[in-house]
C-alpha cells in the first residue's frame, strides 16, 4: 500500500529525514517510536504534503501512485489521514461545516453526489458515538477551546468520518488520561479492517497495549534504524533509546 524509499526531506534548509525507507501493507499496524526530535512528525508531515517541508530525494508510492506529486487535499482524498500531534484550532469555522465540506470533497473526488443533510447528520451521530464525543463539540468551531483529550478524540472522529485507507496517528496518546486513551484506542481498533492500515507514532509503549502493532520501528536521526515485532516496544520501554543511539552512532 505504502512504499517509502530512501526519503530525504528538509525544513528551512535543515535536513531532518535522511534516507528513510518503510513499507506498509494493507491490514497492518506499524508503530514508529523514537526519541524526541528524531523526525517522526516530519515523516507524517512529508507523507501528507505539508508545504513547509521539502523533499530532496527518494520515492513514495501509495497504492501505485506517486504520492509526492499529489496536492495535500488529493492525498487525503486518496485515503491518507493524519491525526495531528497538535490539532489546529480554527476559530469561526464550525465543526459541522468543516466536516461536511471535507466529506463532500471526498465524495466529489469519487464522482459521488454530495451527501444529503440528513444522511450526513446520521453518519456524524454514529461516528461521534465511536469516540464518545460530546454532542456540543460538533456545534463549536474546529478544535477551538477543546481540551487536549477532546482534540484527540476529534481527530479520531474525523478519521471515522473520512474512512481512510492509511491512517497516521501522530502521538495521539500524548496528553490523554487512561480513560481517554482507551476510548481513542477503541475507536481506532473498531475502524481497523483488512483493507486499511495504520502508522502509529508514539514514544510510549502504553498506547501499544491497546493498539497492538504488527511491526515496531525505531526512527532515529531521520532514518528507521531498527525494526521488529511488538516485543521491541517493550524492550524500548525498559531500556530507553540510549542503546539504540549507541548502536547507530557507534557504527
Amino acid at each position, binding site marked *: 500500500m505504502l512504499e517509502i524509499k530512501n526519503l530525504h526531506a528538509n525544513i528551512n534548509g535543515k535536513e531532518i529525514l535522511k534516507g528513510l525507507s518503510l513499507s506498509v501493507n494493507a491490514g497492518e499496524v506499524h508503530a514508529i517510536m523514537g526519541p524526541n526530535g528524531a523526525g517522526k512528525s516530519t515523516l507524517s508531515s512529508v507523507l501528507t504534503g505539508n508545504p*513547509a517541508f521539502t523533499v530532496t530525494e527518494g520515492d513514495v508510492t501509495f497504492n501505485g501512485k506517486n504520492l509526492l506529486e499529489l496536492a495535500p*487535499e488529493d*492525498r487525503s482524498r486518496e485515503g491518507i489521514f493524519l491525526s*495531528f500531534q497538535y490539532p489546529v484550532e*480554527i476559530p469561526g469555522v464550525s465543526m459541522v461545516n*468543516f466536516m461536511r465540506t*471535507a466529506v463532500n*470533497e471526498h465524495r466529489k*473526488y469519487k464522482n459521488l453526489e454530495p451527501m444529503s443533510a440528513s444522511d450526513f447528520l446520521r453518519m456524524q451521530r454514529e461516528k461521534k458515538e465511536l469516540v464518545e464525543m460530546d454532542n456540543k463539540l460538533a456545534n463549536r468551531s474546529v478544535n477551538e477551546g477543546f481540551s487536549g483529550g477532546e482534540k484527540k478524540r476529534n481527530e479520531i472522529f474525523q478519521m471515522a468520518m*473520512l474512512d481512510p485507507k492509511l491512517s497516521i496517528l501522530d502521538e495521539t496518546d500524548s496528553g490523554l488520561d487512561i480513560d481517554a486513551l482507551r476510548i481513542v484506542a477503541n475507536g481506532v481498533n473498531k475502524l481497523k479492517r483488512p483493507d486499511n492500515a495504520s502508522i502509529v507514532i508514539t514514544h510510549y509503549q502504553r498506547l501499544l497495549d491497546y493498539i497492538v502493532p504488527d511491526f515496531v520501528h525505531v526512527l532515529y536521526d531521520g532514518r528507521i534504524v531498527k525494526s521488529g515485532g511488538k516485543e521491541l516496544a517493550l524492550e524500548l520501554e525498559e531500556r530507553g533509546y540510549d542503546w539504540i543511539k549507541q548502536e547507530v552512532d557507534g557504527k
Partner: protein
Amino acid sequence: MEQQYIDLYTAHHESIKKHSAPAMNGLRDASFAQFEKLGFPTVALENYKYTDLKESLSIDYGLNINRIPIPVNPYDVFKCDVPGIHSYLYFVVNDGFYPVTDPRNTQLPDGVIIGSVKEVAATHPELLKDYFGKLSSTKEDGLIAFNGAFAQDGFFMYVPENVVLDKPVQLVNIMRADVDFMAVSHNVIILEKGAKAQLLVCDHTVDEVRFLSNRVTEVFVAENATYEHYKLENTHNKTTNLSTLLIDQDASSNVLANVITLHNGVTRNMIEIDVDGEHCETSLCGMVIGDKNQQVDNFTSIIHNKPNCNSRELFKYVLDDLAKGAFTGKLYVAKDAQKTAAFQTNRNILLKKTAKMRTKPQLEIYADDVKCSHGATIGSLDETALFYMRQRGISADEARLLLMFAFTNDVIENIRIPALQDRIKMLVEKRLRGELSKCEGCVICQ
C-alpha cells in the same frame, strides 16, 4: 480644485438656497466660508494622511443644483428588498429623496416621521431647527464644510418617545447619471427617549460614470433609546464615497453601527460617536473586502464624556491585489468618564503582498479608573489551519474561503436583524468567492 466650487457657489448660491430648506440655508454661508478657509482635505492633514482624495476630487462632476428630477423609477430598477426582512423601504436617487410610493410605508407607527429634510422643513420646522447641523457645524473639516455649503436635501427620520419601529427602515441610495456626478446630502435622524429604530443604508451605483458622494448623517439618540445603523456599500470602482456619520448618545442609550464595504472605489467613512450620558452601550463594527484598486479608510472616534459606559469597536479587513485599507480608532475618555470599559480591535488579512493596510489606534485616556484595551494585527491566512483543512480533503481555494469567511464572521454576528445577518453572510461569501455580490433581484447590479 476648490476654485471651481467657490465660483459655483458664488454664482449660484441663490439657486442652491431656493431649492433647499430654511433650516439648511441657515448655516450655509458660514459653511461656505469655512470651506473657503479649509479647502478640500489633503494628505498633509493628520486625519487624511492615509487616503489621497486628489484624483477623486479633480474630476469635473456635475451637480444637480436646480433639482431637476432624475428620470428613473427606483422601484423598477431596484427590487433588493432584502427578502425575509420586511422593511420600510425608501430611496434616495443621487441626493434627492424619491417620493414614497411603497404602500407599506404608510403603516408607520404613530408619530414616526420619515421623509426628505426639505419636506420636513415645511411640515415640522421646529424639529429641524433644534437638530440640523448641531453635530456637524462644530467640526473643522473641509468635507463637512463643503457638505454644509452644497447639500440641499437629505433623509429625515424622527421616532417619538417610547415608539418602537417594528421593522427596520431601509434606505437605498442609488447613484444614477449620464455624466460624472456629485451627490451632496445631509441626513438627520432623531430618536426620542425610549425610542427604538434600525436603519439599513445600502449604497449602489447604476451607471458606469464616475460618482462622488458627500454625505453627512447626524443621529441623535436620546435617553434609553436604541439605535442600530447598518451600512452596506456595494458600488462600482469609479465611485468615491465620502461619508460622515455623527452620533450623539444620551444616558442609558444603546447604539450599534456596523459599516460593511463589499465593493467600492474610494471610500472614506468618518464615524464619530459621542457618548454624552451615563450607562450607555456602544458598538461600532465594520468590515472591508477589497481587491483590485479599492481603497477604504474608516476613520473612527468614540468619545466617552460620561462615566459608566461600555464601548466595543471591531473592524476587519480582507485585502487582495492592490487594495488599500486604513483604519483609525480614536478612543477618547474624558477625565470624568470613570468606569469606562472600552475595547477596540482591528484585524486585517492581506491576501497578497501588494495589498496595503495602515492601522492606527489612538487612545487618549484622561480618567484613571477605566478598562480600555486595543489590539491591531496585520497578517495573512493561517498556514497551519490551511494545511489542516487540506489534509482533510478540502481544496486550497475552499480552505482559504472558509478561513476568510470565518475571519469576517464576528462582524457579521454584530447584525441584530437575523434575516439581514443571513443575507449579508451570503453576500460576503459570494464576494469572497469572487462572484459579484449583488442583491438578488437587483437589476442594477447585474
